[in-house]
């Protein structure tokens, strides 16, 4: 999967204290991508929703999105921005 662009989060207040960005992808988010990201932290998956929501969270960062969307939100605590490289790597290694 390719990250086509990274833009600032449209909701800077909602993720206050975090450096939040929207990652735009060349394919929709699918369950295997969520599984691939799962080692990053604890998983919340609301799969009864018409469009399931997921969030993977650790102390330093958080990834969330909607299955089927072509973007997801990545928020990293300001002191741990370098860790976004690990998230980017996991996304790019995933074959949609």
């Amino acid at each position, binding site marked *: 999967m390719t990250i086509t662009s990274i833009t600032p989060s449209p*909701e800077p*207040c*909602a*993720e*206050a*204290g975090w450096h939040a960005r929207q990652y735009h992808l060349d394919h929709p988010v699918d369950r295997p991508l969520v599984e691939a990201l799962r080692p990053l932290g604890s998983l*919340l998956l*609301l*799969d*009864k*929703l*018409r*469009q399931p*929501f997921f*969030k993977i969270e650790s102390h330093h960062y958080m990834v*969330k*999105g*909607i299955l089927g*969307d072509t973007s997801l*939100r990545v928020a990293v605590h300001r002191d741990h921005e370098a860790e976004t490289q690990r998230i980017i790597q996991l996304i790019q290694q995933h074959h949609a």
Partner: protein
Amino acid sequence: MTYLNNAATSHPKPLEVVEAIVDALRTPPPSALRSTGGGDDPRPSLRQQLGQLLHIADHERIVLTSGATEALNRLIAGLDGDVITLTDNHNSVLRPLANLPGLRAMSDVPPEEKHTPRHARNYRICHVTSSDNAWQRMLTDDELLRGAVLILPHCSNVTGRIYDLPKICHLVHQRGMFVMADAAQSAGSIPIDVDGWGVDFIAFTGHKHLLGPQGTGGYYVRPGITVRPTLFGGTGRDSSIVRYKEGDWEYEVGTPNLPGLSGLRAGVTHVLQRGVADIFQQGNEQANWLIGQLRTLPNVEVHSPGGTCQGPVVSFNIRGLLPSDVGYMLQNSYDITVRTGLHCAPYLHKELHTHPHGSVRVSMACHTTWDDLHTLMHAVTDICHSL
């Protein structure tokens, strides 16, 4: 899209607002006090309309600004005396108090200085939760000198709670103090009677319930009170005067935002034609309906009081989910725009025990339909049942 973020900015604007802005940009600029000739200066009739809306007879004392934030900053910086404020104020009040030079929190004042003559201005922030009526007790607090100003939101931008301004003005005036109302959420959505209630200062924004564009707003100061200006520049009056005589000040300086003010005038016209009492009734009914519906869901906590003192803003949380996650789902799965987070009112969230993540805020305006609210409730119910 279902837009329920009108406490941030109202959307959509009436067509006549858009047309007024376009017309102002198309026509030559007006000739206010100058020889360039040209079109319509919206400011005199806008002040007149605002006076009608807010019940201000001396409407020429209304100063037009870029919004409520600028208005509050200018008022707070330009006043003398102490300030008392409430925890549910917005950062447009809290941050000027905390950061302007010459102001210090009452808690930082050494005890020996509290009753002695001093030059510094102090401010105190009082809790507002129902279990703590400290903000009412402060009216008998002798630590604050006569002449202090109580700053409060007419309507909370988080809970939608409406303060009883007539009663508060009466109590505060008995103490020889003054009232400054932040009407950012109430101007255009809740009836206001500045002269009748005796409000000493009022600040408002143009882009919320007055339906104008961003970058517009203003304030009013009751006759007999002087506020020192904090901005200086060209005014089009007498350019030979550089240093003003004490008290002979001007407040609207620099090039005015005439296209924006033309749009604001069209917005205020729209509100006056519809009637604020009618707009308030609709917003109050919608907010109370929404509060009632949300309270039927077992894992929802509502932070708004409801009842007659309820403005068109409702805050809630879903237990087990962060408000930002609820907002993300509403936006991206259901195409519903709300606002999540602290809503620039950090102290109130500490009292509500919703700090640091805040709440989900739903905010209506005069154009909000019942279908909008049903769409929201279906989505929130869906999310609750998915847990």
